[in-house]
Structures are given as structure tokens and as C-alpha cells.
């Protein structure tokens, strides 16, 4: 995939980032650097700590220890600045079903303190890019899933953020819509935005410039998809994921002893 110069500026950086819930460590001393303009695939097993990490980076949750910056702002002290510089689409994205597409976008613009003039200028760019023109005045509930997803992207980027966090944006989405969605993600990155994305579809991992694989709070692999596959001598990221996460799993009794545990 496209070369990512190491000198490029850093969009997201964490140092020993840790989050505990009681005695349980959900994110375990995470060190991460994501470059500006990069599509970074944040993969991992269920419960690995991806959503928890994203919430910390978006200023929605404080770490127990460790430090980090997002868009140059400190996650511990500058969460308001961070929120203005990022867009966030959660695992269950939150659109108002009863509002029209336009009303949803107006609502999100309001949250970011955007006046009508700034919103109108932004929509001039966003609406053709996401091909939403024919849908602006439709009630969101009436749209098929693939279009709702576009509206969710529009809502998350209405304030023109430099970094977009997408937590499983294609979960449950059919193969045709998934590809269309990755076209959008690619477009975001080409327009200079940093995309930090999680997915459980391993073919989508291949579209990322770099990926990490996380299990039980730790990163167990990091690199470009091509390098990681070459190092492991495996043909696909799916194979890589299965071998990494299974090997990392504590051995336990189970009826499926035939698998590679």
C-alpha cells in the first residue's frame, strides 16, 4: 500500500497508556503512534480494549495511567480541544431516526458551535462527496443501512475534523455497502484526514496503511499488512489474526482440541 513517510507528523501518540476497571486491566501500557493522513486499522479480539482505547483518545474516558496526545493536544488536560479536532462514530452510531438527514447534520453542527453560514459552506463540500443530495430531506429511519452509515460519517465529520475515529463502522453491513464505505474512508484519507478504524472484517484490514492487532489489552502485532503477512509467511490477514490471537490465548480445556491451540 502507499508509503507512509516516517517523518510525517503524528496524529495520535500514546505512552504506556493504561486503563483499569477495578482490578481488571482493559488497556495495558499501550504505546502507539499514528501518522497524519494514515488509515490505521485497530484490530483485535473481542474485549481486547479497542473501544476503551478509542474512548480515551476521544476524551470520553480518562486513562488510569500513561499519557497521550491527539492532534497535538494532551488527553489528560485538553479533552475539549481534542473533541473539536476529531470525529467519532461509535459501534452503535447515534443518529436521530425521526429527524431528516439535514436535521441530523444541523444537530451535530450545533454541538460543535457551528453557525448556519459555516454549516452551509461545509455541506457544499460534504453533500456531493457523500452523494447525499437526494437524501437530505428524507427521514433517517426510512434509509437503508448503507445510507444511514453515510449520514453517520457526515455527522461525525460535519465540523471538518483532522482525525476520524470509526469504531466498527461496517459491522453487519453487506459486501456491496462495505466496499462503498471503504471508498469513502479512502477518500477521507486522500483529503488529508487521519482515519483510526476498527473492524472484524479481515479483508478490510488490507485497505489500511498500517494495522495493529490487540489482545487482552496489549498490542501483539503492528505494521503494514504486507510486512506483517510477509514476516509471518501467511497469505492473508485473516490467517495472521487467527494464528496470533489463538497463540496468545491462555490454553484452556475445550471440546475443540483440534484447533491450533
Amino acid at each position: 500500500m502507499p508509503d507512509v513517510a516516517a517523518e510525517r507528523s503524528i496524529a495520535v501518540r500514546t505512552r504506556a497508556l493504561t486503563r483499569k476497571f477495578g482490578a481488571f486491566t482493559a488497556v495495558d501500557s499501550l504505546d502507539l503512534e499514528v501518522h497524519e493522513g494514515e488509515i490505521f486499522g485497530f484490530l483485535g479480539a473481542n474485549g481486547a480494549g479497542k473501544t476503551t482505547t478509542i474512548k480515551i483518545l476521544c476524551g470520553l474516558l480518562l486513562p488510569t495511567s500513561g499519557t497521550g496526545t491527539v492532534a497535538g493536544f494532551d488527553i489528560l488536560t485538553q479533552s475539549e480541544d481534542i473533541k473539536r479536532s476529531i470525529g467519532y462514530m461509535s459501534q452503535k452510531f447515534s443518529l436521530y431516526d425521526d429527524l431528516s438527514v439535514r436535521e441530523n447534520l444541523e444537530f451535530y453542527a450545533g454541538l460543535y458551535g457551528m453557525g448556519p453560514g459555516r454549516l452551509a459552506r461545509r455541506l457544499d463540500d460534504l453533500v456531493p462527496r457523500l452523494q447525499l443530495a437526494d437524501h437530505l430531506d428524507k427521514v433517517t429511519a426510512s434509509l437503508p443501512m448503507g445510507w444511514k452509515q453515510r449520514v453517520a460519517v457526515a455527522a461525525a465529520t460535519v465540523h471538518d475534523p483532522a482525525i476520524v475515529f470509526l469504531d466498527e463502522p461496517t459491522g453487519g453491513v453487506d459486501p456491496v455497502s462495505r466496499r462503498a464505505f471503504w471508498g469513502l474512508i479512502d477518500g477521507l484519507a486522500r483529503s488529508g484526514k487521519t482515519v483510526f478504524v476498527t473492524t472484524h472484517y479481515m479483508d478490510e484490514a488490507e485497505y489500511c496503511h498500517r494495522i495493529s492487532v490487540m489482545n487482552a489489552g496489549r498490542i501483539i502485532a503492528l505494521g503494514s499488512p504486507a510486512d506483517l503477512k510477509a514476516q509471518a509467511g501467511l497469505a492473508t490477514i485473516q490467517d495472521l489474526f487467527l494464528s496470533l490471537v489463538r497463540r496468545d490465548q491462555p490454553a484452556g480445556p475445550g471440546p475443540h482440541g483440534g484447533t491450533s491451540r
Partner: protein
Amino acid sequence: MKKADGPAIEVEGLTKSYARAGGRHRPGRGRGDATPDDRVRALLPFDLTVSRGQIVGILGPDGAGKSTLLRILATLLVPDRGRGTVCGHDLVKGYRQVRRAIGYMPQRFSLYPDLSVLENMRFFAEIFGLSRAEFRSRMAELLAFNMLGPFLDRRAGALSGGMKQKLALSCILIHTPELLILDEPTTGVDPVSRAEFWEILRGLRDQGVPVLVTTPYMDEAQHCDRICLLHEGARLAEEAPERIVESFPYSLAVLRGGDPLMRQAELGTLEGVVRAVAFGDRLHLYTRDLPALTSRLAARGLEVTAGRPTLEDVFVEKMGAAPDA
């Protein structure tokens, strides 16, 4: 159990339409755009037979009518027309018996967020009347799939998205129903657990429990004994996955490396290319004339190899243009 020999599902002529969404739920606004005649047809006359010992997959794009069909079969929705039996009981008159016989998991299944993982599982075991011994042996098997062993005391509400989904599945699988109906069971579930989950489904199938399942994952669909492709409420095809793949009408050229997402747009319009579709690190090009396309691409310095289509190729080809394409 009754009627062990008849098909698990036998329905014909099912139809269902809904009032178009929007408008009416907007109190205080005069902008409602739904008229009484403005209805969405979710299911056209639809027939389906599922025999014992089969995993049948219903595939289709978002909004094809998959969930509507499953809800009708689970007796949660009454069809406008049509009739049939599920586990030998009439779909409408016998709904109580149907509900007792089947295990159904809707797309968004809620657990009890304030109960722990163990309490949720025990709760479902009690509903289904499992003995302690049955519960214990079933738990062992399910924990191997859901990997929730270390988290038995955690509130379900504090689980990650995928862990919640796996717990919900485990609660449904805690007893052995006569028929399983699962609506996108593996959404949000990681690849390792998906593989384990399908092991369990195959095990149940081999014990004689038929499974009707929807999934957006084509690698899972490959594991079904039969697939029904649903599009706009109607059946496009219904066959074994291998058969469906054989019906792919084009030759497949595979281009490795480069930037498949970018090339998808660029090469999709090339002469002789019916469609270009990104598949991870590869680009699939559908063509009627492979040799001609191969030399046309060679002239551009691009080397392609002939490939064998997969179910995902069939899906993308049949389900029409992506909004971007």
C-alpha cells in the same frame, strides 16, 4: 418431540408489507410524508422448506427482507398472506408451540445488563429447564467458544460489544431447541470466535437440529448446506453454495498488489471489464473475455491471473451497483 420426520420449516406464499417509515412518529410536525398507500413490500410471495440436518443461510443486501422473514417464522410477526408450519406447528394458530420449539435470536438481542455473565446464562438455563448436570456440561462447551470464563462475575452491561453478542448467543444455545433461527448472530464477533461458533452450529446440525441463519460474512455462508439469495423480498437463487458459485456468469481476473480501492474505480470502466471489485489486497475483474482483458492489461504493465469466483463475487455481481460504483 413430535413430527420428527417432517421438514422443520415448510411455508408458502408469505407476504408482508410495512407502512413506510417516518412521518407519523414526529409529533408536532406537519411534515409527515407517509400516506396510507405508501407501503414498503418487505416480502413478496415467498416459499421455503428447511429439512432436518441442514444449515440454511439467507443472504441479501440490507433491507432485502431477511429479518422480516425470520420474525415471521419465529411468530413475532404475522404475515399478510401465506401459511405453513414450523416444527410441525401452524405458523399462526400454533404460535405458542412454535415458540416453545425454536431457539430464536433477533438481530439486537438484549441481555440483562445488571446480571453477571454467569447469572444471565443460569437464568436462561432455568427458563429452558436444564438440570444442573446439563447446565455444567453445556457451560464447558460454550465457554470454549465465548472465552468469557475469566469474566463470569462481570455485569453483562460492562462487556465489550462482541462479548455481549457472544453472551447472547451462548444464552440461546444453552438448551438444544428443535430448530435454531439466528439473525446475524456473528456481527461484532471476532474471527477466532466466529470459527468456534460455526463449529458449534455444525455440531448441532449433525445432531439433527436445523439452523436458519442470516449473515453478512460470505466465508460463513460457505459453510451452509443451502443458501437462499434474497433481494427486495424475492428469491434470486436457492442452492448449495458450490452450485451458486458455479452459476457465476463471468470469468474472473485477479490483480494482486497496488491499491485495490483506487484501481477499483480506475479499472472498472476499462473496456471488457464488467465490474471491478476490491477484495482486500486483490482486485477482482469480471469479464466475458479473459484472454483479451489479460493482454489489454499487460499492455498497461499489469499482470493478472485467472481466479476462481467465490460466493462473495456472486453476491456482489448479483446485488447490483454499489452507490459509489
